[in-house]
């Protein structure tokens, strides 16, 4: 890859960032996308551990029927904070942070389009998280009304504590952050690509970040306005969501799910992006059907805007509305299925190297397909009437968000860690992490499908000793503790590898996208020189000048 084909000089105007040898100040004051990206990843790891602890408290309380481990109030606080934390302070900022780090590198740019806005986005997430968790210090503790905060339960007459107010303020802050990073990504991707990096040659991870960013700027304003109305209701006696005073209880749900369903794709599309990078590299083949993988992402993004009321089939919107939302939701299975089949086809005929990133990517396919199939089932209105608000749904979305998003995140961490730090993660610990995650995850969540259809509602701090309920819940709780061990191993692997990991070469996986062309970790200015881009896999073209991906492509200098 050090061949002397014409090289494109890159603009290296210095930015006020990354002062060497200034310790913490060089981080706090940084506007460098790599430093900001790493700060995103570290803060999400901290929130991941907190959210995981909350999950363990939940599972402890449910370990046996009529258990008295914690009070109902604390239980309700725990599931509220677990959901809010994992969605808004773990998966979402992790994927945004990964994008912040990788997008400029993958498109051969020096930084994001708006570096200061980028720093603002990150610090707003931290600020929002502190606001949210500050509510633990208030007299009655954090919000007890769930991450969905349905009105009128979240309105003042029914929730006099300060928790929901801090909750809404904290999420409003992260909402501003999300819109800002969405805009930043869109401008960066559309205007700062290196020469030759056409939209049709964009790495798929960047494609997915682009679609996600459009979703962010479309749907975050919906929920931000709902938060504003909720705060007006709670602080200034407005009555948007109070039926007793002429407001509407259902209106909140339209706002919430108008944001909330596209949010699912905000949480999972970048994960698809990670998988679409990892699988080809470890199969030693280009992605199968690039146009279809990218195009299906756009289709998912568009469809996701029109399916929100499938969260509301029990509300009584009428069967015409229900049927429309049912069909629209089922349609999402088609572009999603196309993706899965293209990943499988990419592996087919390859020479697959099952390093830890590839293990997680392969498991992702199976776990995500389980979550996707139950998703199609519950898009059918009568099945939703049976399963909604039960543990079946808890199982379903954990298969999507854990088996999907988090498995991809783990794959991504093992894949890019050498680039971020210049050191490899331990493969031995990685395999322990992988297998314990597989066992713990499926043990925790698979059984919950059955609990749900047997009649166990969600968000209940206690349950009667119905046949098999106790043993099934206990199994799930044991699984959660196995998962906890796997997470400890993961955190330990990160810590240990940072100090003692094997030194990583620039391109340890022999990958093909531009971030692997520069040093590990990259220099402040990213690239001394950006190699020419004449296809989707610039580093493949460099390594195989006799067999380029696009033999007829012209070199743009």
């Amino acid at each position: 890859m050090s061949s002397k084909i014409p090289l494109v000089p890159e603009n290296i105007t210095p930015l006020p960032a990354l002062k060497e040898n200034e310790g913490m100040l060089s981080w706090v004051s940084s506007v460098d996308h790599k430093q900001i990206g790493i700060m995103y990843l570290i803060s999400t790891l901290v929130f991941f551990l907190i959210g995981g602890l909350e999950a363990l408290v939940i599972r402890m309380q449910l370990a046996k029927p009529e258990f008295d481990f914690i009070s109902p109030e604390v239980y309700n606080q725990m599931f509220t904070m677990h959901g809010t934390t994992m969605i808004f302070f773990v998966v979402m900022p992790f994927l945004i942070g990964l994008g912040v780090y990788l997008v400029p590198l993958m498109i051969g740019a020096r930084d994001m389009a708006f570096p200061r806005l980028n720093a603002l986005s990150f610090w707003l997430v931290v600020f929002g998280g502190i606001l949210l968790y500050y509510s633990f210090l208030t007299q009655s503790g954090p919000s007890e009304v769930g991450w969905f905060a349905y009105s009128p339960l979240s309105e003042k007459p029914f929730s006099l504590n300060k928790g929901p107010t801090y909750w809404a303020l904290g999420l409003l802050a992260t909402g501003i952050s999300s819109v800002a990073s969405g805009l930043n990504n869109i401008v960066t991707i559309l205007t700062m690509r290196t020469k030759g990096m056409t939209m049709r040659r964009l790495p798929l991870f960047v494609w997915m970040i682009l679609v996600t960013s459009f979703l962010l700027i479309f749907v975050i304003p919906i929920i931000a306005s709902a938060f504003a109305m909720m705060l007006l209701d709670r602080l200034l006696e407005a009555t948007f969501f109070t039926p007793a005073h002429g407001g509407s209880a259902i209106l909140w749900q339209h706002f919430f799910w108008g944001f909330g369903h596209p949010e699912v794709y905000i949480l999972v599309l970048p994960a698809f992006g990670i998988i679409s990078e990892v699988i080809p590299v470890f199969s030693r083949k280009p992605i199968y059907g690039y146009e279809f993988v990218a195009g299906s992402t756009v289709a998912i993004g568009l469809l996701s805007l029109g399916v929100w009321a499938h969260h509301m089939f029990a509300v009584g919107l009428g069967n015409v509305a229900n049927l429309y939302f049912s069909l629209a939701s089922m349609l999402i299975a088609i572009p999603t299925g196309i993706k899965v089949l293209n990943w499988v086809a990419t592996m087919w005929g390859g020479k697959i190297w099952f390093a830890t990133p590839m293990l997680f990517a392969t498991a992702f396919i199976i776990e995500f397909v389980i979550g996707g199939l139950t998703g199609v089932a519950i898009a059918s209105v009568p099945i939703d009437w049976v399963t909604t608000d039960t543990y079946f749904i808890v199982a379903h979305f954990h298969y999507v968000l854990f088996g999907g998003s988090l498995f991809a995140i783990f794959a991504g961490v093992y894949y890019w860690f050498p680039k971020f730090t210049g050191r490899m993660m331990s493969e031995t610990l990685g395999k322990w992490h992988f297998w314990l995650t597989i066992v713990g995850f499926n043990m925790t969540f698979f059984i919950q499908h059955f609990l749900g259809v047997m009649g166990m509602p969600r968000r209940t701090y206690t349950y009667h000793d119905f046949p098999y309920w106790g043993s099934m819940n206990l199994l799930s709780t044991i699984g959660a503790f196995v998962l906890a061990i796997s997470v400890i191993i993961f955190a330990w692997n990160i810590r240990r590898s940072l100090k003692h990991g094997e030194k990583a070469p620039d391109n340890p996986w022999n990958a093909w996208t531009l971030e692997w062309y520069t040093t590990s970790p990259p220099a402040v200015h990213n690239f001394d020189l950006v190699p020419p881009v004449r296809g989707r896999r610039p580093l493949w073209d460099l390594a195989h000048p006799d067999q380029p991906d696009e033999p007829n492509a012209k070199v743009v200098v």
Partner: protein
Amino acid sequence: MEKLGGLFNPSSPEMEAMADLTYYIIAISIGILAIIVVAVTYIIIRYRKSSNDSSEPYQNFGDTRLEIVWTVIPIAIVAVLFQLTCSTMKAVDPPIGDHEPDIVVIGHQWWWEFYYPKSGVLTANELHMPVDKKLLLRIESIDVIHDFWVPELGRKIDAIPGHTNHIWIGAGEPGIFLGACAEFCGTQHANMRIRVIAETEEEFNEWQQQQLVVPRTPRSGIAGKGAELFRTKACMNCHTIAGTPAAARIGPNLTHLNKRQTIGAGVLTNSPENLTKWLVNPQKYKQGALMPNMKLTDSEVNAIVAYLEALK
């Protein structure tokens, strides 16, 4: 083996239709999952890189015909699923037309009020209904959003303040069917249980007649003292007892409490002993419930229990 509940024990024609649909779609899903699992397993075995092989495999970029095939097949599957969805909904959720509701269900934090407009019966937490009869329920809420759900009899339906919903419900066999609130509604969401008692037409009519009896208020003895305490200790600010000035509907109607199987919306089985425990401190059994600890003395509790047991 003990009997599994919910979807595994559908006890109404509506629930049977929904269970059939669920099984059908789960079967299709398992088929699809099996194809993916077999393909991935085959790939793991067949295409694993051998350690001494550093050559690159054939670089295959895709095949548009194949993409079209695996776009069209899912479209066909979705069409089948949607058709099944439509036909099941038609069977389960027919239009209500100009039917008047047989029972009005009103959700409260954290108990259920059942009103039978045709007879005037007002009761709580235990819903009696004649077997083999399709009844129309009107679902309302007085405070926050709840959800009426009896897993073996049918669908969920939200109880929303300021918005009225209707569902059809019927039991195909006599028995007790347990349900619960399915929409998170606050601290004691877990203990907002429903007990449906499906019985023969005669039993149901007998129950309804009995519920309409206005009991004689005891004037003397310990029960008489209880009746007085009920008036003076703020019980009547929230509860109704027919034939007395107590007519509030903030808490459950207690007129025929002694005929119910549970107290506290399913927290305790109904017996004089449990009622005593409950009155000593309801917060111990249902923490956060809107009924406060009234700080009654033991003799006051015994008197009120005697009064409630004496209402016949």
